[in-house]
């Protein structure tokens, strides 16, 4: 059973939205019938939205204050697109040639149409799409990122989601990313909680990558004890396009992140790499769906989760290969490490193959730290804590190493080690 839309959400429905009027009106009606996904929905078996249901969140009033992220990423001259509690702070000056950045509210009708018509389209039958529908009905803020054909944008484009600046705020921002033929760009989501307040962000990114273009998309969910987020990314790839996604989730109370990727042109390639490290009572959940709709396409997916304390990690990866999509290579692995008796990890690969000439593999492992490896390290004189730390960091490192930006990779390596260090201190305090 899905849950009925709570009253506070119904009443928060805006009269005017960023979506074109007809789309917004339909979405408002559908949102009411769809409600919020409940535990009985197959896609929500492991994660529930109770915290949102009970949250009494209200629309942002726009603090407008000069709120800065407290975490500095080592990026070379980034283009910052800052959202404070979902309110867009405006486009930066001096935008490189070939790149256009504009506030969604200022975009023309066609652009807004595109922003609210993702490929693959969310289907009404899928209860999952209640959240996308809600975003469509409620989105007022957003940004449009357009990369011209043949443009190579070296400067990373950074969306800063700064959540929790004001009390119990919800936001439904929408982002459109379009890469022209043979262009390339790097999009980074810097996700941080800037206050102690509970928050809920229901964001949607719609992206299209034209022929021979390449998008690198890195999401860094860095902290936040009371941050709730439901994040959705749609990607469609034309022929020879490439999409490299790196999804790192280190914080948040409940984070549900979903990717819908439509590989629609031959020669296209997708990498989905992920690292989730739930601890405390965090729930970190990623669902990915890749549809190989064209022949000679490839995908490579590698997710790792490390769950500590009473943390919960969820990974579900679906790969669908359509009937005419021959000569597909799709590889998926999900490796998971449980560090405490109260932690839990659910990992589920799902392959649906309708073509006959495909090479597919998937595997999921869930385990504890390797006792034999621990013994080996200790027999060389390393303390138990250090040996454990090394093994855990080593496990994470294998996915961190796949971040294409060297400085960011080194920074994240340290950040992960630092987190594991906090773990040791916490253990000491307990002892």
């Amino acid at each position, binding site marked *: 059973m899905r849950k009925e839309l709570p009253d506070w959400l119904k009443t928060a429905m805006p009269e005017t939205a960023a979506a074109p009027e007809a789309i917004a009106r339909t979405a408002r009606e559908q949102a009411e019938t769809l409600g919020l996904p409940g535990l009985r929905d197959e896609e929500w078996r492991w994660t529930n939205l109770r915290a949102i249901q009970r949250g009494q969140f209200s629309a942002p009033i726009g603090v407008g204050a000069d709120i800065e992220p407290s975490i500095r990423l080592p990026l070379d001259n980034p283009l910052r697109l800052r959202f404070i509690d979902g309110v867009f702070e405006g486009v930066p000056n001096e935008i490189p040639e070939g790149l256009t950045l504009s506030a969604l509210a200022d975009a023309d009708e066609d652009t807004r149409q595109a922003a609210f018509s993702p490929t693959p389209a969310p289907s009404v039958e899928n209860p999952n799409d209640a959240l996308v529908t809600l975003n469509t009905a409620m989105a007022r803020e957003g940004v449009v990122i357009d990369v011209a054909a043949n443009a190579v944008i070296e400067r990373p484009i950074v969306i800063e989601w700064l959540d929790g600046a004001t009390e119990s705020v919800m936001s439904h921002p929408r982002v459109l990313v379009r890469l022209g033929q043979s262009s390339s760009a790097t999009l980074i989501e810097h996700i941080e909680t800037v206050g102690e307040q509970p928050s809920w962000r229901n964001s949607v990114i719609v992206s299209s990558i034209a022929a021979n273009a390449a998008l690198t998309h890195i999401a860094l969910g860095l902290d936040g004890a009371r941050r709730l987020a439901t994040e959705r990314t749609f990607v469609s790839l034309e022929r020879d396009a490439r999409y490299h996604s790196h999804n790192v989730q280190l914080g948040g109370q409940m984070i549900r992140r979903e990717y819908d990727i439509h590989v629609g042109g031959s020669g296209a390639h997708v990498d989905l790499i992920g690292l989730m490290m739930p601890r405390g009572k965090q729930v970190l959940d990623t669902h990915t769906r890749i549809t190989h709709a064209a022949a000679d396409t490839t995908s490579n997916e590698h997710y790792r989760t490390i769950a500590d304390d009473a943390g919960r990690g969820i990974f579900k990866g679906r790969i669908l290969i359509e009937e005419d999509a021959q000569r597909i290579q799709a590889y998926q692995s999900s490796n998971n490490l449980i560090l405490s008796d109260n932690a839990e990890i659910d990992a589920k690969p799902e392959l649906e193959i309708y073509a006959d000439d495909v090479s597919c593999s998937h595997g999921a492992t869930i385990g504890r730290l*390797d*006792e*034999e*490896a621990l*013994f*080996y*390290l*200790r*027999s*060389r*004189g*390393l*303390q*138990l804590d*250090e*040996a454990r730390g*090394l*093994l855990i*960091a*080593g*496990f*994470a*490192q*294998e996915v961190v190493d796949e971040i294409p930006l060297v400085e960011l990779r080194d920074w994240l390596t340290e950040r992960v080690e630092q987190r594991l260090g906090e773990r040791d201190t916490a253990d000491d305090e307990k002892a």
Partner: protein
Amino acid sequence: MALLEIKNLHAEIDGKEILRGINLTINAGEVHAIMGPNGSGKSTLCHVLGGRDGYEVTQGTITFDGHDLLEMETEERAVAGMLLGFQHPVEIPGVKNIYLLKESLNAKREAQGLDEVDTFTFMKQVRELVASMDMDDAFLHRGVNAGFSGGEKKRNEILQMLLLEPKLALLDETDSGLDIDALKVVSEGINRMRGEERGIILVTHYQRLLNYVEPDFVHVLYQGKIIKSGDKSLAHRLEAEGYQEILEEAS
């Protein structure tokens, strides 16, 4: 005082008794070979000496260099000078070899009240050792044993031993599965360790190793007990006659 003294050692795993009264004394300067059929408890003995979890010592005592070994954690045994060469060295892809070498050496130095080794001296020493083991420097930057061949893993164990210079080296089948060139390199490494102040235990199935590293004593372990001890000629007898006759003699 003996370097290692094992008295009436009984140990079990999951309630199953594997070691059933082992007595063994090793003095500094001696090389002992332990032989015995598969499943006789050789690796179990090594693991108990190394302090691995899951083994319960039900009777007996072990003294190592004046310490009550059974009271020490695995890492304490290591820094006190015991090195266990694994029959099956573990692959640890996320931890670099060079890092482990350095941390191990520093752990030992710290226990001895010494400062951390300086990087230059350390690298120089490690490179020399790597060359002496006929290994490539590239191994240093790979994950510990990750994707190493069987022979490479065993060389790596000896490399660690040479760096850490243990008082007691317990080498569990370090010679198994080595081709003749690798066996020579490994044996040379062991012979370099041999010395007045050190003890070495070689667990092996083959006389071949003992041609290169001549033991002072040979013991036969059978069903969790040492049923016969002798000098190196015992190993030759085993090779020629097999275990049957010696088992019958002993019973």
